[in-house]
């Protein structure tokens, strides 16, 4: 109990301390640490303040600490609770004092705390620590020796590398991986600093050592890169390795290798490697877009093992150019479906400014299988070739016509839209209709001026036979906008049952608020109950979905919906909307609704939920609750458990926090698991059991997972 109180005080103090700290940093002029703040923090460390406060003082010394703070921080390096906090500033305070303190701590710490000190020395790259670190390489504790090895690698100078090289052949197996890691770090630094030969030497030593494979892979990569172009031979040697990991590291290294010679080498390897490996080498080639040897990929795409061809064809789609067009067109017409489809995809993507021009030129002379394929490409690549497509729409071959219609859908400009509408309204070939309809929809939804597009479609509807009207109305609803809404609204109120059906269905799923008046009108006037329900539900859906509707307007819409709805089920949907937007206004509506017998239960729940959310404290709310027959109560949560079977989580505290002066309790989240800090019994149905008192009378209730919590009045 005492301990709890002590920490409670700590947390309170901590909160104030945090606010103070942030303010002090903000107030500090300039960009240097504040000596004044440092003095305060040191004083805190020297005091008998709780550990929690000292921890945060350490954190703040990361910003304000200097040599002056180092001795106090160093004292904490042997403290199991605070050592990790003390190393936060000690890693970043510049100057020799922190280095010396950490070095000194090598003798005063052991085990895991010593590992921490070693790690910090490594982060600081303290060159003066090489000797003591070297002696720690012999430590009987493998964790300590490993930490020393990595720290030496981070320091990465010649003495450090010498120590590690000496240790590599003799280190115990458990430490050898870290020694190799340290050496790879040293070699990397040597290479960056211009000593490639020394780097290569170290990499080679690690490659040949008895160390885990990952260290060998790192050393192999380094050995290749540090040799520059002379490393290509070592790289291609890995392509032949039976070890998949070495082959993979060669693929990775090939991608980052500088210069152009590597591209030639990769091209040569494609012809020598087994198919599954050649395919992967091609992927690596294609990732070197600036220097890729394209002819080698074109060649691989044309003939050979299928996996290699597939990889090469796909690669051309990413890095090819107009010089690859002929080859890809030929391949696209091959009988193998997978090969052909890969080529078609590549053609659709093929980069290069000249590609589109070349496709149009070929289209003019195309025949046979090439003709529809080129037409499809025009659409996929969004090439402007309307006259050629319009000509193709008249072709005797259905395949050509279908391709042309599809491509027109993808490319036709607004001024030619009537051509596609005509294809839908009166197709010359009946079996072209489905393709034409899809093409028209594709075209319409991408038109820049949707009102103009809708006007043209509406005009088409007037001229259409009954069956086609429905199709055009569907497309019109995808276009949206005022004209579309008006046209569909008119259809919904027409005398034609089919048009009413289509119109009301499309209006019911309309997704912009401007449909509200049309829907309300239809809901009020429709003689058909089916269409009324569609319209009223569409209307309620708009009120529910659009958060940006201003409050007065939403209230009016809810009132309208409540009045126009002919069924209690739909009125209950309105109650759901009220609950979603709690306010005095929605509370009033809920209270009014609670007077209707068929809505009483749901409306009462809604009333309570809204009151809970808006606070329930004002006179106005109290008055409204009273009107609804609900009074404020004195609620006390005695005990609450959540879970299933024997596994029960105590959630009393959460519920006590959420309980107000109503019988309803709103949780922070509608989901019980989220509100109660996790799922006590995953994948099992759970219950919430609450023992409580209302106005002093004891009650007990059980709720299914995620149910609304309304506590019954105890008898």
């Amino acid at each position: 109990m005492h301990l709890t109180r002590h920490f409670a005080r700590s947390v309170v103090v901590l909160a104030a301390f945090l606010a103070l700290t942030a303010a002090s940093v903000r107030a500090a002029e300039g960009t240097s640490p504040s000596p004044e703040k440092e003095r305060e923090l040191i004083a805190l460390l020297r005091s008998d303040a709780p550990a929690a406060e000292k921890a945060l003082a350490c954190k703040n010394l990361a910003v304000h600490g200097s040599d002056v703070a180092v001795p106090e921080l160093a004292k904490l390096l042997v403290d199991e609770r605070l050592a990790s906090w003390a190393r936060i500033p000690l890693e970043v305070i510049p100057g020799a004092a922190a280095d010396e303190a950490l070095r000194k701590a090598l003798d005063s710490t052991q085990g895991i705390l010593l590992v921490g000190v070693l790690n910090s020395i490594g982060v600081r790259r303290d060159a003066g620590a090489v000797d003591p670190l070297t002696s720690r390489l012999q430590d009987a504790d493998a964790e300590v020796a490993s930490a020393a090895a990595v720290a030496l690698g981070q320091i990465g100078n010649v003495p450090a590398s010498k120590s590690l090289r000496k240790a590599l052949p003799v280190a115990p197996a458990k430490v050898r991986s870290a020694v190799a890691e340290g050496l790879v770090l040293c070699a990397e630094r040597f290479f960056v600093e211009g000593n490639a030969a020394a780097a290569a030497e170290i990499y080679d030593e690690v490659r040949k050592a008895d160390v885990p494979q990952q260290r060998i892979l790192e050393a192999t990569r380094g050995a290749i890169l540090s040799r520059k172009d002379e490393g290509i031979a070592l790289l291609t040697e890995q392509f032949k390795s039976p070890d998949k990991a070495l082959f993979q590291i060669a693929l990775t290294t090939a991608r980052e290798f500088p210069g152009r010679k590597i591209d030639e080498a990769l091209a040569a390897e494609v012809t020598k490697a087994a198919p599954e490996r050649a395919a992967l080498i091609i992927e690596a080639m294609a990732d070197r877009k600036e220097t890729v040897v394209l002819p080698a990929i074109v060649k691989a795409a044309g003939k050979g093992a299928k996996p290699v061809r597939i990889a090469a064809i796909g690669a051309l789609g990413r890095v090819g150019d107009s010089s690859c067009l002929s080859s890809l067109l030929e391949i696209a017409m091959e009988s193998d479906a997978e090969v052909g489809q890969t080529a078609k995809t590549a053609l659709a993507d093929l980069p290069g400014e000249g590609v589109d021009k070349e496709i149009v030129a070929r289209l003019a002379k195309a025949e046979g299988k090439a003709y529809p394929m080129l037409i499809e490409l025009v659409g996929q690549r969004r090439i402007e070739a309307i006259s050629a497509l319009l000509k193709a729409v008249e072709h005797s071959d259905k395949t050509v016509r279908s391709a042309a219609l599809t491509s027109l859908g993808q490319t036709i400009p607004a001024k030619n839209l009537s051509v596609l509408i005509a294809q839908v309204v009166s197709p010359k070939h009946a079996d072209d209709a489905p393709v034409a309809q899809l093409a028209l929809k594709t075209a319409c939804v991408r038109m820049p001026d949707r009102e103009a597009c809708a006007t043209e479609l509406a005009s088409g509807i007037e001229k259409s036979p009954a069956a086609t009207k429905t199709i055009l109305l569907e497309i019109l609803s995808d276009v949206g906008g005022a004209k579309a809404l008006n046209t569909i609204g008119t259809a919904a109120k027409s005398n034609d049952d089919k048009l009413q059906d289509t119109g009301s269905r499309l209006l019911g799923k309309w997704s912009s608020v401007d449909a509200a008046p049309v829907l309300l009108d239809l809901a009020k006037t429709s003689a058909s109950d089916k269409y009324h329900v569609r319209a009223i539900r569409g209307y309620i859906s708009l009120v529910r979905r659009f958060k940006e509707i201003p409050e007065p307007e939403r209230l009016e819409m809810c009132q309208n919906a409540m009045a126009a709805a002919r069924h209690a089920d739909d009125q209950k949907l309105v109650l759901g909307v009220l609950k979603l937007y709690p306010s005095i206004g929605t509370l009033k509506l809920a209270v009014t609704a609670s007077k209707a017998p068929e809505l009483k239960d749901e409306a009462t729940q809604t009333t309570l939920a809204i009151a809970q959310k808006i606070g329930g404290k004002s006179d106005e709310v109290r008055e409204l609750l009273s009107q609804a027959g609900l009074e404020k109560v004195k609620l006390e949560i005695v005990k609450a458990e959540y879970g299933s079977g024997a596994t029960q989580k105590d959630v009393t505290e959460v519920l006590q926090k959420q309980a107000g002066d109503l019988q309803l309790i709103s949780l922070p989240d509608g989901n019980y698991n989220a509100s109660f800090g996790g799922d006590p019994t995953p994948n099992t149905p759970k219950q919430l059991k609450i023992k409580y008192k209302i106005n002093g009378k004891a009650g007990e209730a059980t709720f299914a997972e995620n149910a609304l919590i309304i506590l019954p009045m105890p008898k």
Partner: protein
Amino acid sequence: MSNKAKRLPRRQFLKSALSVAGAAAVAPTIIPSSALGLDGAVAPSERVIVGGIGIGNRGTYDLGCFLEQKDVQFVAVCDIKEARRTAVKKIADEKYGTQKCEMYRDFRELLDRKDIDAVLIATGPNWHATAAMNAAKAGKDMYCEKPCTKNIAQSLILADTMRRTGRVFQAGTQRRNLPHFAFACELARTGKLGKLKKVYAHPAGMQAMTSGWLIPEQEPNKEVVDWNMYLGPAAWRPFNAKLLDGFNFEKGGGLVGGGVLEWGSHCVDLCQWAVGDCPPPIEYNAPANGELMARYENGVELIYREKGWIPLGSCPVRFEGETGWVEAGDSGKLVLSSPELLAGRSVAEIGGYPATYHVRDFLDCVKTRSQPKGNADAACNAHIACHAANIALYLNRQVKYDLKKHEFINDEQANRLRSEALREPWRL
């Protein structure tokens, strides 16, 4: 995930993505038909053997995306919480109709397994970088949830480590594999908006945060909740169940952190992509009027702002050039300054955060050894842009960043916030 995205078959997704974003959108799929058996099953040699580390709510979603892939075999789970270990094992075992998913409390034991090719890291943000570095050094490729790092130093080490070890790293920045975001970024990157002037990111909570101790509670049995492993690289503090919310615990780390990092690792990442995956901004200003303005070396402004967005769902971004602009959000919708920017194309709407395509991108790269969309370099730059903004927020003043030295210019306070010591015995 939206129902629409759930329903959209992969092939259709790829087509949609390509139709709007060109070749930049999607990586190749590397499951040739020849690798599939007659029943459509993937040959053992083509399978990627996966283990999971820290699979909570988000991780379970990610896991679902992995399990959808025919070439994935999920074999092991590690979690410091027994309930989660058991729950994930149940999911995996039910998927395969076996009892073979192994459970671990210490992820190092999972990483020791030689049969595992890749890991899904979905711990709390406190562990992401440390677990990722350990995985790389153990020879595993990884899909790592965001935010991936706790500070600038970790971001740089992450990129260096992935390069040095040759491992494939995919940050959980799944919006890089969503077509409408890809298209918006493509418009900005390729000059379709004119000369790019401003990119906007939604940080969702622009305040500096810090973390400390809470009132000590009775520490559970470590088989049930291993508090020591939960703390991991975070400085020590006594057990308190409230801290077990991995989502909020040590999110930003150090003295700074918070919303800029949590959502910025998505939104700022998209802005980074829009500006061509260049290095992060070089100047970060104190927040004013709910906005924090940073500036790239080429003069483009990166603006972190809470308000002023067109309602397009969470994680909105906006890119403004001299002749046009585009805004996109999680609804899957785009708003453009002119429909002409669509160049005759319609944009597939895939809302929410479907990560399936991002997971697929990762798996393909595990096989090809190519770089996935959320690779370590991209993640490093985006995270530095977030951490540096957090430092400007915390100090409440301008900071300037030297891209070559990766340090703040003449600014000792800011420089000291670039890193934070890890609790023993952890190191990067």
